[in-house]
Every structure is written in C-alpha cells, then in structure tokens.
C-alpha cells in the first residue's frame, strides 16, 4: 500500500511538472513577440503605407509583435535597409519591392533565414520572399456602381499613381462599376507618375474636372482636394477619407492589411516558409477590403443594388473583373 502511495505521489509530481511546463510554454512565446520591421518607401502618412503602418502599430499595441520601421527610404537605400534589419536579426520584414524588384529578391537570397513579405507586382521567390498585392478592387467596383448613378455630366475621372498592374486593376474595376449602373458614362484617367505627391494629384483632379468630370476616383491622396475645391463628389481609395472630406468623399474602397499581416506573422512564428502570395487575404471575400460609404448620397435603390453585389462577391457568385491592362 505504501509503495503504491509513493508511486502515485511521484506520478502526481511528475504530471504536475509536465502540466506546468506545457502551460508555461505559450507564456514564454507570448512574452517574446515576433520582431517585425517595416520598410516604407514613402512617408507613413501616404495612404497605402498608412494602412500597413496602422495595422502594424495595432498589432504591436496588442502585444502580438514588436514593430520597428523606416520611412521615406529611397530606392537607392532600400536594399541596405533590408540588409540592416536582416543583420539585426528581426523575425519578419514587411515592405514594398515595387521599385527594387530584382534587388530585393537578391537580398532575400543572401539572408535565407529572414522572412520577407513585400508589396510587389511580381511573384514570390525562394522560401523566404513572399509577396502581396493591394487588391481593394472589390470596393472600387462597388463605389463605381454608386458613382454611375450619381454623375450628371456622365463623365467620371480617376487619378492614379502609375500604370502598374494593381493600380490598373483598381481603376479598371472602378470604371467597370460605373459602367454597370450607367453604361453611357465616360471614364478618363490620369497618372501622376509618383506614389506620394498630393499637390500633383490635386492638379490632375482639377484637370479632370475642367474636362467635365463630376465625380473623381482618387486612387492617390490629394485628389479629393480638387473635388472639394470645386464642390463635386469624390471616391477615396485604401483608407476612409470621409472624416477629412465629409461633404466630398461619399465612398471609399478600403483596403485592410491586418489579415495579410496576421497570416505572415503566423507563418513566420511557426517557421513556415513565407515564399508565397498573400494577396488574397486582403480581398473583400477574406475580410481584407470593403466599401465604406455615406448613407443618403446615392439613392436607396442604388445602395440596395450595390449591397446585393457586395453580398454576391462575399458569397463567391460574382467576381469583379481583374483587368490589369493600362486604362485609357
């Protein structure tokens, strides 16, 4: 009896230890969040970068990651910034390789143990270089549907950064959405040749208005200034511009980075290769992007039709066309 007792006591101690170790393990990993570096080619105030920056800050506040960043990193310095963070031993590098597609992949090949997840027009490379696109075109299509019903001159204009595939796709989606509710409407587009130059976007917007456009799609920040100045309506992209332009921006094609970030962080934390395409996490169907619109601007019927299409996109019965050709 005595023997049995001591055995069971030993068992008890052993199992307590095991249990303790198991319950302690997640506590240790939670205490040391993944160190994530963000390398922004533009200031973090730039709409696209701000979406990523906010998502990263939010994740850092929730204690899921530790976040360090560099902003306004020029193409010449970008590869060095990547190498420096890699040498510092950060656990995941988030950034944008549009201007340095080949160099960024070279850097990743030189640091095979550092996961990189980059906004890119190209594909993933190796095990440690993943990519994501900015596919908020679902929201742009839906905003276009509203814009089509609202234009009086039957002319809408878009102001975009550069004719790179995903910007093209976004503007084409907006134009398609306009066409869906107003086949008569004409659509014109101006590219400003840079990603962050609000005064230039404003100028381009004013030129569109002078040519008769009465709704502007501001793929770039600054476009809404032109619309506000001339008292017409505008559609925002990536972030919600309505609080800043309450009477001007009636709809926004929002993009969310958090789902992409969470997926990348999960992969990096688990040690899975990140060399894949994370784009889909940023789409409406996956909860990444969406439309935000002001009630009462478009007619209730137009809103109803738009929301029905939105539901079809979520259900997978409708897919917004992905046309990456340069819009004319």
């Amino acid at each position, binding site marked *: 009896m005595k023997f049995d007792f001591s055995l069971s006591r030993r068992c008890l101690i052993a199992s307590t230890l095991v249990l303790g170790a198991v319950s302690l393990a997640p506590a240790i990993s939670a205490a040391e969040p993944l160190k994530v570096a963000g390398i922004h080619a533009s200031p973090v105030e730039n709409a696209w970068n701000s979406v990523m920056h906010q998502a990263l800050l939010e994740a850092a506040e929730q204690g899921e990651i530790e976040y360090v960043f560099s902003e306004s990193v020029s*193409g*010449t310095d970008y590869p060095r*910034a990547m190498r420096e*963070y890699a040498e510092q031993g950060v656990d995941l590098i988030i950034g944008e390789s*549009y201007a340095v597609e080949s160099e960024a992949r070279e850097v990743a090949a030189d640091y095979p143990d550092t996961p990189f997840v980059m906004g890119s*027009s190209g594909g993933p490379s190796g095990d440690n270089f993943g990519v994501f696109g900015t596919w908020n075109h679902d929201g742009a299509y839906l905003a276009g549907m509203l814009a089509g019903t609202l234009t009086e001159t039957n002319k809408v204009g878009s102001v975009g950064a*550069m004719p790179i595939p995903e910007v093209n796709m976004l503007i084409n989606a907006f134009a398609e959405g306009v066409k869906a509710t107003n086949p008569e409407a004409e659509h014109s587009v101006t590219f400003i*040749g840079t990603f962050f130059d609000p005064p230039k976007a404003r100028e381009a917007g004013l030129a569109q208005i002078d040519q008769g456009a009465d709704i502007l799609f501001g793929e770039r920040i600054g476009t809404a200034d032109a619309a506000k100045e001339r008292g017409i309506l505008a559609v925002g992209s990536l972030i919600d511009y309505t609080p800043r332009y309450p009477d001007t921006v009636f709809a926004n094609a929002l993009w969310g980075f958090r789902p992409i970030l969470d997926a990348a962080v999960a992969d990096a934390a688990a040690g899975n290769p990140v060399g894949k395409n994370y784009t889909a996490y940023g789409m409406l169907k996956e909860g990444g992007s969406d439309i935000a619109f002001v009630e009462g601007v478009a007619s209730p019927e137009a809103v109803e039709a738009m929301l029905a299409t939105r539901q079809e996109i979520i259900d997978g019965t409708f897919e917004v066309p992905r046309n990456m050709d340069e819009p004319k």
Partner: protein
Amino acid sequence: MRFERREHRPAALVIATPLIAVVAALAVSGILIALAGAPVFEAYWKILVGAFGSKLSITETLTRATPLILTGLAAAVAFRAKLWNIGAEGQFYLGAIATAAVGARITEGMAPIIQIPILLAAGAVAGMVLLLLPLWLRLKFSVDEVVTTLLLNFVAILFVSMLVDTVLKDPMAFGWPQSEAVERAARLPKLIDRSRLHIGLLIAVAIAFAVHFVQSRTTFGMRARAAGLNPRGAVFAGVPLARTLVLVAMLSGGLAGLAGSIEVLGVKGYVTTDLSPGYGYSGIVVAMLANLHPLGVVLAALFTAVMFVGADGMSRSLGIPTYIADVTVALSLISMLVAVFFTQYRVRR
C-alpha cells in the same frame, strides 16, 4: 567685423576645426535624438557602428562614397576655373540614361571588356554635352551658368522620366517606370561578394589622382586655375580662355556623367527617377568641404557617406524617425563647411 584670409594655416587649427565641427553637429542633433526619446551617447556609437561596424556597413559606406567622389570632382574642377556647374545632378542622370540606352539597345552581347568602356564613355559624353550647352550660352551671350545649369537639372530629370516611361521602359518591370537593364555581363565586377561594393570605387579614386595630376602638373591645369583666379589677367597672359573653359566643362560634365554611368553599371543595372538621392547636389558640398582639392574630395566624399550611412543605420537600430538622420547629415555638412571656412579666414574687428 570683417573676414581676412589667413596667410598661414596653423596645423593645430587645420586638425582641430573639423573635429570641433563634428562635435558641434553631433551635439545639436543630440538634442533631437534626446527629444525622440533615444539614448544620445548610444546614438553616437550607433552612427559609428552603422558606418563601420560590420562588413555590410563598410561596403555600404564605400558604395555610397563612390558617386560622391565623382560628382565632388565634377564640382571641384569646374569651381576652380570659376565655372559654376550646379548641374551635376542632371549630368548624372543623363549619363545614367545614356549608359542604359546604349547598353540595352546597341552594345548588348559584346564582350564585357569592350562593352564596359563604351558604356562608361557614353555616360561621360552625355554629361559633357549637358554642360557644354550652358557654357556656350555663357560664352556667346553671357548667360549666367548658375541659373542655366541649375534649371537644366529639372529638364534632364524630366527627360529621363519621359524616357523610362516610354521608349526605354522595361517591359519586364510590371509597369514600373524604369529603363531597360544593362545585361549582367556588362556590369562592373563586385569587389566583395554579397555586397553592393563594386570596382567603381577604385575607378573613382584613380580618377581623383589623375585629376590632381592634371591640375597640378599640366599646362591645362595651370590655365584652368588662371581662368578662375582672374579671367582678364589670364587672357592677357595668353591663356585661350574659351578653349580652356570648354575643356573644363568637358571634364566636369564628363565626371558627373561618369558618376551616373558607374552607378548604373555598378549598383542598379537600370535607371529610375530616384536613382540619385541628390548625388549631384551633394557633390557641391563635397567639393566645398575639400576646398576644391581633388584628393580632399575623396576624403570629403567618404565623410559625407559615413555620416549618411551611419546616421541612417542609427535611426533604424534605435527606432527613431529617419528624418533625424537627415538632419544629422545636413548639420554635419553645414558645420564642416563653416569649419573649413574658418581655417582659411580669420575674423577681424
């Protein structure tokens, strides 16, 4: 109060003033670093680490110094002859795009030993042409070249911007406005593997020595200096002023164009409109820091590169805004310029 040129420059002063300048610049930027909530002395240490602390940082500093040596020389040789070439930035871009265009369209497939010199020459010639135009305006119509060379920078960059968006646009670049690339075989060999450091550094340093030789040991060098010190006196002494200035312009513009060419062949392989983070303008500062001396240019370029790469790395390792690094660089350049000034002049009441 007036400034008087020093007859003698005490050695202690020449050594001490740059040190005081760096300390002053670091002290002022230290205030900003402290405001950003980072430990100031650790930040200074991190600047050194960022510039010299690893193989990566050393190679990056030297890679950064390479174009600065060449644009610094471009400014130095021109300023010595009082040819105010503010257009090295435009000449840099025109040299870069000429190299990319010739490389992608004409010389592709040639043996590197032939192709690389042709591409370097193409860049240099493009830079020359861009400076000869304002010089011609000056000689013919007395148009101030400070204005024309400065404004031609914008013309050149917009021209490059047009080319990379149209005829020279790389169809493989996913719509990004960048030029077609020079083939890999025609790039400058790397000095160190897994880094961006290329033999352009050696070329630049060798050219600095060559320029020093030309300026101090040849008739052309003497004439160029005479043209700068006193143009009318030079003419009176039999210096062919126009011809000398044309040669100076070819040298200056050629060096700036070569800087662009080497940056393309050594680092990038192709041209974008953000190829140069102001190398042409920084070259002017480098030349002033070096007191227009060709060998001093090498040291001044190195100093500028150290400050930039070091401060940039510091901002990343401490997580303070990148802009503080820019301010640190600017402060160190300004205070260094003031220091160089005081080694040459004294204040008299």
